[in-house]
């Protein structure tokens, strides 16, 4: 589906930003002709760790390369790279990375995550994508009734994008907002409802219950809803991302990740562990602060990016 395709220019621009400042030295690791040795293996392990892949994952993959190398099955860096790709790319079927739409009636997408992860901005991006690229009618639900000015923030986006919004006052019951949004969508024949929620740490049991309540209300109003529960993960997040994914999944059955802020130097490697441990696919990535800065997730490119060397010199 070319439906999420992003103009190459924009992407290049985003990458260039990184390259400029950090004197990006792409793929020095995998220069053709380089032979595998312990130093090389150490370097790979370092790359993985620096990308927040987690030390266990890193050791596992490096272990696999070492084994094959010792058995004489691979010799040089390019072959090693293939092993890495093979290991990292299994289990990322395309179907799972796309939005699941309702067969009829409104599709409901619920968006959750820890404080400041990028939920509201990601919603603006997603709404923009659905409206302008796939021609869907979209309704936003201002379900963050907690944080100061959160309703205003989403309202501004709705105005900029020319998208309808359902909102209550700050301090109102978020489940009631979701309820109203579902009803409005049915009445107005809207294609997609996107529900914003307040940022919350996954360790706060009462707030996780509140999230469940929102989900339950949505499920009651519209059959099969929510069709997607997207967890927004900040790409700078370290190993705690796994715990976030686990707790949110336990509470509201996350169906996919949206990895925000990949336009920085952080690589977001923790999603590999999340995929391995919880089978939650990444669906979208965020690469900037404007509504256009969204892309569907491409594991191949992601893996390539993991190997780019951009630690400040």
């Amino acid at each position, binding site marked *: 589906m070319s439906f999420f395709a992003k103009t190459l220019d924009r992407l290049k621009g985003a990458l260039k930003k990184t390259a400029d400042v950090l004197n990006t030295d792409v793929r020095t690791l995998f220069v053709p002709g380089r032979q595998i040795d312990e130093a090389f293996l150490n370097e790979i392990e370092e790359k993985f760790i620096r*990308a927040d892949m987690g030390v266990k994952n890193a050791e596992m993959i490096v272990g696999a390369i070492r084994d094959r190398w010792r058995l004489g099955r691979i010799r040089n860096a390019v072959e090693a790279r293939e092993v890495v790709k093979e290991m990292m790319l299994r289990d990322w079927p395309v179907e799972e990375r796309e939005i699941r739409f309702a067969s009829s009636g409104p599709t409901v997408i619920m968006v959750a995550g820890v404080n400041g992860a990028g939920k509201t901005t990601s919603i603006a991006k997603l709404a923009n994508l659905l409206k302008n690229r796939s021609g869907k009618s979209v309704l936003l639900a201002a379900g963050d009734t907690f944080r100061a000015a959160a309703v*205003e923030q989403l309202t501004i986006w709705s105005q900029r994008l020319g998208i309808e919004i359902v909102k209550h006052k700050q301090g109102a019951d978020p489940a009631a907002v979701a309820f109203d949004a579902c009803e409005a969508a049915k009445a107005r024949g809207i294609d997609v409802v996107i529900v914003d929620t307040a940022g919350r740490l996954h360790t706060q049991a009462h707030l996780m219950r509140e999230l469940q309540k929102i989900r339950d209300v949505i499920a009651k109003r519209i059959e099969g809803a929510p069709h997607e529960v997207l967890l927004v993960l900040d790409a700078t997040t*370290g190993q705690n991302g796994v715990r976030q994914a686990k707790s949110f999944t336990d509470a509201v059955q996350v169906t996919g990740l949206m990895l925000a*802020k990949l336009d920085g130097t952080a690589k977001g490697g923790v999603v590999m562990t999340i995929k391995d441990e919880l089978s939650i696919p990444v669906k979208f990535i965020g690469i900037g602060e404007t509504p256009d800065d969204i892309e569907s997730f491409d594991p191949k490119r992601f893996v390539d990016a993991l190997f780019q060397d951009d630690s400040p010199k």
Partner: protein
Amino acid sequence: MFDVLTDKFTSVFRSLSGKGKISEENIRDAMREVRTALLEADVNLKVVNDFCEHVIQKAIGQEVIKSLQPAQLMVKIVNDELVNLMGPVDTTIYTVSPGPTVIMMCGLQGSGKTTTCGKLALFLRKKGHQPMLAAVDLQRPAAVEQLRTLGQQTQTPVYADDSRVASHGQVAPGAAVAVARAAVQEAKRQGRDILILDTAGRLAIDHELMQELKDVHDAVQPHQIFLVLDAMTGQDAVNSAKAFNEKLELDGLVLTKFDSDTRGGALLSAKMVTGKPVKFLGVGEKLENLEEFRPEGVASRILGMGDIVGLVEEAHKQFDMEQQAKLAEKMEKGEFTLDDFIGQMTQIRKLGPMGKILGMIPGMSELAKNVNMNGEGVESHMGRMQAIYNSMTRVERKKPDLIDAPRRRRIARGAGVDPNDVSQFLKQFEMSRNMMRAVGGMNMLSRMKLMRGLMSGNLGAIAQPGANLLKTKRSGWQEKKDRNRKGKKR
């Protein structure tokens, strides 16, 4: 997860025990686990490597202090170094006169700057200052509104200029500088002594926005610049901390979202790469949830070890090591007397309330939570035992077998307890003596746990989670128990 890690440490450290001196190889082995622990806690790779090398150098050839196990000494060195590195602690907010003292907050998007500004305003107000907030984030939609709300909640005036807010995502060049300048003037006019600038979140590699920050800096010359960093940040923490520090020369760090279950390695990374003190931790969404930084708890959190270090340290301070060594010897020979029993108990009591001790033992903290009451029970139980002991004659203490029914009644009266308690006490001692033989070779921590079980009369507690230190001794343990049974028949 903590428990898994703790077990690993324990096993590595167990394999170290029994040697008089730590060899370099031992240390390197143990440090591999520390390295993994630190990496799992998101401490930056380079920081980890430097740290480990540093500890190894420090640890090589250090004498093991008497009966303290090498493993525990290693833990102590690691912890001390961590605490050292996170210090020196300086949570002072420096002010200038005449005011206003300008504090600029900066950081990545979503790190928690705006909320932290509100928290800081409240914190300063409580210290008797008259802060003012300024909305220099013109970028994120509704950021100005958010700051205004926080101003209301903390009763702090807010300077904002809505006409400068980016209408379609593009902030006009110079707008941030203009707002910051005007805010300083306004703070002066109103006689506020501190001005807190909330700036827009930005990526450290975004040239333009970093330059904007620099321009604001040059225009108003803030007296203090704080970087606000999400405590859940991974390896990237160093990149941003470094970049902000190079551009602006930071004065301090604020780590937010510390109330999550992150191990918080980002704190160490940022501190190491900037050399700037951590000033505050954000520990909740409420505006009061700002804490002045103290490194001790954070060190064990990063290591994921519960407060084992606190326990070892405390034990180290309180326990008479000579006496412990003698006791260990006696135990092995089976010469454990009632005096020793009480002596040991007294030492444990010196460590503080049982609930607290339990909480410090890895894997036992869960237990400690619901044991709280139980813990107090243990306390009073130990108090009773002490009283019984006190009311015994010296001869009775040497030869508890002498204690018959009349003596028992006398002792009970003296101690203000029931005669049954006296029998109970003696039974417990008897049991301990038999078991002590088995545990003579254990390390201090295991022994303490065992003692706790014995003294509470609750042997089940020994088999509770976290008591895995006992595992290796299981067979010996069982054997002694059988012997004990036989003894009773006789």
